[in-house]
């Protein structure tokens, strides 16, 4: 391989792997959006909260598995509480109202997380070394591969769950048509609770990986801004879309940074993903895999 080509491949691979990290956050959004039509802006705050709780427990001397279990329990409680106290009273409100409510929730969680655990930056070590290794002349980070594998596992698990379990079937029914699902005897509140718990767990996984990468600090809750273009591109209601779009956004961002950055100035990764996603949307307004909506009067 020529050095130029090897560099290009390295950039793309690095981009794809960071795209997996975006997709991890995006999946949390999709779970909730699919089943309750809420764009949960608090997902980023939940990622922060999970990582901060975990790292603070570890720092207070809890062993790794115990801290993980405790954080899991906390995230379940957080998910349930949000569903009970915020979303349930707002059932049947327009989607924009629900979105703004989750914006409020995000503020509460961010404030509470930092009030409880402090604002300093914590290092989070998951015990995976971040040494790059050589695959046919291309340097790949071991940590990124681990993250990708974990994300793959999670997506596979979610897909199997949605396809083959009764609860998964119920999720799909609710996503398809809440009223019909209600008519068929599904208990909507129970399903919504389950979904919020699931998104709490996804937030935990994303929080640990992102926290290990960036350090656990307030900016972790801003990963939500990285996930939004991914969601827009993949469609808000498709898990496969989130993964594919995550990869596209990750690769496009890195490529633009390396090859476009020198011409129009650095720091473009803040918005280039948005512009790329929007340009795509103008052609196909429901995203890569999103469901087409039909308007009725």
């Amino acid at each position, binding site marked *: 391989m020529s050095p130029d080509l090897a560099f290009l491949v390295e950039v793309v691979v690095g981009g794809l792997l960071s795209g997996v990290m975006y997709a991890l956050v995006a999946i949390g959004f999709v779970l909730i959006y699919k089943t309750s039509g809420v764009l949960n802006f608090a997902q980023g705050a939940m990622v922060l909260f999970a990582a901060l709780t975990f790292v603070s427990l570890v720092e207070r001397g809890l062993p790794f598995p115990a801290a993980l279990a405790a954080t899991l329990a906390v995230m379940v409680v957080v998910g349930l509480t949000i569903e009970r106290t915020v979303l349930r009273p707002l059932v049947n409100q327009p989607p924009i109202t629900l979105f703004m409510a989750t914006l409020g929730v995000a503020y509460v969680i961010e404030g509470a997380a930092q009030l409880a655990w402090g604002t300093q930056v914590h290092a989070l070590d998951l015990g995976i070394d971040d040494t790059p290794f050589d695959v046919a002349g291309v340097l790949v980070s071991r940590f990124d591969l681990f993250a990708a594998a974990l994300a793959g596992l999670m997506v596979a698990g979610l897909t199997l769950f949605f396809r083959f379990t009764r609860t998964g079937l119920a999720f799909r029914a609710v996503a398809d048509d809440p009223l019909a699902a209600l008519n068929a005897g599904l208990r909507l509140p129970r399903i919504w609770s389950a979904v919020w718990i699931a998104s709490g767990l996804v937030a935990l996984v994303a929080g640990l990986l992102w926290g290990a990468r960036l350090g656990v600090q307030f900016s972790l809750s801003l990963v939500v801004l990285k996930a*939004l273009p991914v969601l827009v591109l993949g469609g808000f209601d498709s898990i496969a879309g989130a993964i594919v779009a995550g990869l596209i956004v990750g690769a496009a961002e890195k490529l633009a940074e390396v090859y476009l950055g020198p011409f129009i100035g650095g720091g473009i990764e803040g918005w280039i993903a948005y512009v790329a996603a929007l340009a795509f949307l103008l052609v196909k307004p429901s995203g890569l895999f999103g469901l087409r909506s039909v308007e009725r009067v």
Partner: protein
Amino acid sequence: MATALPLDLARPRRTGAAGILLLLALAYGLVPLLGTGYLFEAILTPFLALALAGLGLNLLTGYAGLLSLGSAAFMAVGAYAAFNLSLRLPGLPLPATILLAGLVAAAVGAVAGLPALRLRGFYLAVSTLAVQFFVAWALNRIGWLSNDSPSGIVAAPRLEVAGLSFDDARGRYLFSLTVVAVLTFLAWRLVRSPTGRNLVAIRDHETAARIVGVKVARTKLLAFALSSFIVGIAGVLWAFAYLRTVEPAGFNLDRSFQILFIVIIGGLGTLRGAFLGAGFIVVLPLVLSRLGAAALGDGFDSGTLEMVQRIVLGALIVAVLIREPAGLAALLDRALNHALRRVRPRS
């Protein structure tokens, strides 16, 4: 998409007008006489700028139902446009500068609104985020916009109209007040005009609006332009009258959310909501810091205050959306009606 927002018609017209005249008389007559420098600088001037920004966003989000998360970007466009105009066209009188800055913001707003022709709901909200990040990046990167100042921070010009100086605290308050009063009057005329009705029609049911003949695409772009015009001028006030410097950092995503919160707490789809919400947002940190200091003493530092403020604000948003979706404006109306009924019992 059906909303439960009021059309803002069912109000006793005469009491409303009398109330507004009374408020204006107070704001122009009594407040400048009694107010202190602190009141003008730390409370009233930022309140007026934020209220104006809320008013502009409310046209877009409250009336036309188009959610924007990029208000701070339009404020920044207005502020930097006004700075550049006053720098490069020194002879231009200040009102003309402000008007032109508003028009620049309106033009940017109309461009930013283009995705609204294809996208709706969350997809559109995300597209306004793109504007937010792009504008912040452009202001940092393109040196010409900040006159090649290395930090991007530049001093605002003096506030002078026709030889009259508005440079002291009271003057800047009166200047802001006048701008806000004029624009509020225009916005009030607008929402009562056929155009204003079209905005509400699109919010309440876009397809139905199209069927009855509302030109949806044009009206949406108009909503973006009008809203950005007002928000841009709010940005001028924020930079010129309140901070007296123009800097990109003050126009970040948090500011955009703050303005959205003003609109939600104050009341979507009402003009007075922006003022109630802005008053609330400005006073809340002051009240919290007093309460916290009284309760905890020295343990209540500014970091804790910020966190508590975040929690209270977030919780209030949720509470308002659940308990009173029409915001403080509806609360105030009910209280006023109650009080009036007590004064003038129906026979």
